[in-house]
Structure formats: structure tokens, C-alpha cells
């Protein structure tokens, strides 16, 4: 009986030490917390944020020529594109490109249907705004030039 008693004590102490080993190990492993907004998540390649216009490499203007394929293919009807031909140019350029992100289901049909790959998913995940209107009427043309655009951010970090 007494050996049983001592065995229990030794076994119990051992199990306590095993638990303490787990926590001390955890203490010296890397923290999983990402300290937003000072740090940002590294998003996977196929992350789907709201769509954004892809700029042409040479000019920096959007590749989009306002054909309207994306708007026609959108099942939620959340894209509005209007464009006109600038003087002396061959192709049209978009004058209005509005996205109603509150309706968008991120299906990606617009990105797939674009003949010149002028649309892509952004990697913007920290979306918060003071009102619904901010996201029901996103102007992707100014988005391209705005400092909040992830494209501009990428350029900045590259340069």
C-alpha cells in the first residue's frame, strides 16, 4: 500500500512536470499574433479581395478599354463601366468604373471574362469604413491612384 502511495506521488509529480515542459516550450516559440496595422498578413496567391484595375506596364493607366464584358457577366450586377475614345486613340478608356462591393460575391466571373486581363483580385483585407456608401460605390479608377490601393502599396514596397 505504501509503495502504491509513493508511486502515485512520483507519477503525479512527473505528470505536472510534463505539463510545465509544454508551457515553457510554448513560451519560447514564435507568437502567432500579427500586430495589425504595424504588420500585415502574407496573403495566399489566390486570395480574393475586391477586384481592382490592372495598370498597363508602359503607361500606368488601366489596361481596361471599357468593353463591358465584366459588367455583363456579373451575376450580381455590381459593376458599372462607361468609357469613351480619347482623341486620336484606337481603344476606348474607362471614364467610370464603379463596384458595388456590398453585392459582390467574389465569384470571379469578371476577372475570368476580361479579354485583356485588366481586372484582378486585390489583396486588401483590412476593409472598414464609416458608412455603407464607401463600399457600395467604390470608384476603382481613383482606387488605382489612391494611396490605399494595394497596387500602389506594392509599387511603393518594390521601389
Amino acid at each position, binding site marked *: 500500500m505504501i509503495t502504491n502511495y509513493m508511486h502515485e506521488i512520483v507519477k503525479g509529480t512527473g505528470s*505536472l512536470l510534463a505539463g510545465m515542459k509544454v*508551457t515553457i516550450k510554448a*513560451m519560447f*516559440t*514564435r*507568437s*502567432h*499574433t500579427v*500586430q495589425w496595422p504595424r504588420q500585415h498578413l502574407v496573403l495566399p496567391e489566390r486570395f480574393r479581395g475586391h477586384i481592382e484595375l490592372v495598370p498597363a506596364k508602359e503607361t500606368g493607366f488601366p489596361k481596361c478599354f471599357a468593353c463591358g464584358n465584366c459588367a455583363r457577366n456579373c451575376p450580381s450586377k455590381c459593376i458599372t463601366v462607361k468609357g469613351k475614345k480619347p482623341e486620336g486613340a484606337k481603344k476606348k478608356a474607362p471614364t467610370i468604373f464603379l463596384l458595388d462591393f456590398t453585392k459582390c460575391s467574389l465569384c470571379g466571373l469578371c476577372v475570368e471574362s476580361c479579354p485583356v486581363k485588366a481586372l484582378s483580385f486585390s489583396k486588401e483585407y483590412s476593409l472598414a469604413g464609416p458608412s455603407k456608401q464607401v463600399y457600395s460605390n467604390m470608384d476603382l479608377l481613383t482606387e488605382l491612384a489612391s494611396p490605399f490601393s494595394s497596387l500602389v502599396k506594392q509599387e511603393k514596397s518594390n521601389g
Partner: protein
Amino acid sequence: MKDINLLHIIISLLGIMGIVSVNAVLVVWLERKAAGRMQFRHGPMEVGFHGILQTLADGIKLVSKQLVAPDHADTALFILAPIVSLVPIFVAMMPIPFSSTLLAHETETGLLLVIALGLLNTLGILLAGWGSDNKYGLLGGTRAVGQILAYKIPLLLTVLTIVIMAGSFSLREIALAQHGTWYAFVQPIAFLIYIVCIVLETNRSPFDMAEAESELVAGFHTEYSGMAFSMFFLAEYSYMFVASALATVMFLGGWQGPLLPAPIWFVLKVYFFLFLMIWFRWTFPRVRIDQMLMLGWKVLLPLSLINFLITAVVLAL
């Protein structure tokens, strides 16, 4: 002579207040940081370097909050309880030797004094539970009293083991007696029992039955807010410091160590015990009351008694 004594008292009290507050700030920070790291988080990061001033900010918030007493509370006891809990600390800190000369007041029976004053914390907790007219508070308070039954006798037996080895109740003498080897190596069983006992004594997890936030809201301090709450908080961390200081003196040779100056060695050893308690808290789940009493009466008591008797016999031979 009288003036010198008064000056002595004022200086030591100021020093102790400094230690109590700096210790609370540091230990709370250390605790939150360690808790965070053990759960793969960062812990406090915003206020000061890696959140070191977070406790200070929390303290300012607590001080500026209103103290609300419940309608049917026993107001006198309600106000008295945090004071009863905190004030003994200032006396209990007195005989703790930070080095062979750096101590506020040397008494022949320093060890007994500190242990006796440590018990007053439980009185404060009981008063808080009783005075706040809250069922959770009362349950927490009575639990704290029940907890004494589990740890006080083994605690005193291990302390007695050390006392008969050192031949003195004076903390300074006990530390000096370990000039060659620390008692932690001579008395490993007493050392382990004492560590369990200080966790029990300071109401720390896994023995935080008096607080038991998942069962009793916040236990004895459910109804407390503002400064009164922070006094309980201060008291808890200060009792941790005192209990760790006793452990340092009794088992790790007090301030003695190579190279570094004595007070630094002492504080380092104390913080080793404090970290150990924090480590326990974030590792072990809370035990039930019957399990705690079982541990106290069936494991700690017989082991400490046998250890005491063996030590006494060996010393007598």
C-alpha cells in the same frame, strides 16, 4: 535615540512601499507577458517598451474609479477588508534580509512573524467575502479559510525542519547557515512541499479557490472596484513576494552568490520563485476543494512530518 528610531521607521517604510509597488508593476507585467507567450500571444505591447508600463496605466485607471459598496454590505468590514489584507505586508517585509546588512528590522523570530502575518491575508479575504453581502464573495471567503487547513500544518512542519537545521528563527541566521550548501539540496522534499505550500498560501492557481473566476465570478473581490480592488491586487502580489523571499532565505541561501552584489542575487532568486508561480498558474487547471484537501492531508502532511522526524533524528545523532 527616539528621533533616530523614527527616522529608521520612516525610511524602511518608504523602502518597503517602493518595493511593494515596483514589485506589483513588474510581476503583473511578467505574469501577463508570460501568459501571453505561453499561449502564443504577445501579451501587452502598447504602453512603454513591450508594454512594461501597462500595469501603471491600469493602476491609474483603478485609482480613478469609484468604490461602490453594495446596498446591504457591512460598510465597515467592506472598507476594512482590503486594508487588513494589505497592511500586514509592510510589517512582514521588515525582517526580510536583502543582504546581510540590508534589512529594515532584525528580529530573533523573523520567520514566525512573517508566517503569522501571512495568515492575516486570509482574514482580509474572509472579511471581504462576509462584508460584501454577495454569495460568491462569501463562498470565496470561506473557501480561503478552508484552504488554511490544507497547507498551514505542512508549511509549519517544513519551516520547523529548516529551523532545527539552522538552529534559529532569524531569517538572517538561516541564510547565513547555508554558507556551504543551500538547503534546497539538503532538503529537497521540504523544498518541494514548501513550493506547493506557498502556492496554496498565496491563493494562486491551481489553488485559487477563493477567486475561482469560472465558478465564483471573482470570489471574495466580486464586489470590489477601484482602489479597494487594487489593494487586494497589490496584497496578492506582495504576499507572493514575501512567500518567495522566505523560500529564498530558507532554501536558496538568501542573498549569497558569486560575482553579483547581494541584493541583486536576492531579488533574482525571489523572481525565480515568482516566475515559478506564474508558470504554475498558466499550466495547471484549478483543483477541486476535496482534491486540495486530499493533497494537503494525505500527501503534504505525512511527507512533511516524516521529513521533519527524519531530520530531527539525523541531527540528534
